[in-house]
């Protein structure tokens, strides 16, 4: 506790202290969190996930890119991203076809935020990764296979 506080304070940020207070329940965090989309994250299959996201059957688009390596050295950390040149993008999502629950993350993008987001996800095995993009009121999708390899001594 103390050491965390020290580190935070050393970085000289008042808002970090705010964070401490927020975490301690003294004040509420200064953010308006949306309701976590349980139905979408609990869905198993791609189709059910898309339905829960209200995306129906999105069209494939060449203007959407899944960024990431073809090969992951380990499935626990796979760097992936979504980028698109489509206009008026308000939401992007990353889905992993063969994970127990397909949906990994969704991002809501205000008007001034670029439609180019990167994160790191877990993959249980080699799978197709899908990038879902909402442009205007339409959904578009792109896919890429990422191979998850076994590594090291094997155990």
């Amino acid at each position, binding site marked *: 506790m103390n050491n*965390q506080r020290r*580190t*935070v304070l050393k*970085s000289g*940020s*008042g*808002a*970090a202290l*705010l*964070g*401490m207070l*927020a*975490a*301690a329940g003294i004040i509420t*965090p*200064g*953010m*308006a*969190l*949306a309701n*976590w*989309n349980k139905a979408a*994250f609990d869905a198993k299959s791609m189709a059910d996930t898309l339905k829960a996201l209200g995306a129906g059957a999105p069209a494939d688009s060449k203007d959407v890119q899944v960024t990431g390596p073809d090969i992951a050295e380990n499935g*626990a*950390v*796979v*760097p992936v*991203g979504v980028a698109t040149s489509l206009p008026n993008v308000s939401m992007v999502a990353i889905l*992993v076809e063969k*994970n*127990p*629950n397909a*949906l*990994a*993350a*969704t*991002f*809501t*993008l*205000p008007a*001034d*935020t*670029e439609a*180019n*987001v*990167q*994160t*790191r*996800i*877990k*993959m249980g095995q080699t799978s197709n990764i899908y990038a879902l993009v909402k442009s205007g009121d339409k959904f578009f999708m792109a896919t890429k296979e990422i191979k998850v390899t076994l590594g090291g001594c094997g155990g």
Partner: protein
Amino acid sequence: MGNPMKIRAANKDGVTEVKVLVSHEMETGQRKDAAGAVVPAWFITELVAKHGDKTVLSAEFGPSVSKNPYLAFKFKGGAKGEKVTVSWKDNKGDSRTDEAAIG
């Protein structure tokens, strides 16, 4: 309440790039411990980034986001010295807020 995040924000040609590293276990709820018991799910569900008072990104995570989550994105605007604030909340109700100055 977790450890501090590491937030980097840099403005170039009117666009601010934000990179966030969060300290969090991101337990899937599918792993078993040494005794064979399922370890309960414990993961960040929501994360919000703000530039001043303005939300620049809100994200929802499932448990398949990697341990110690990483996030990078860009928004138009932002000037040197202005603050970017990132807050998260997990499925156990824990939360945390940290901030960094745009460099």
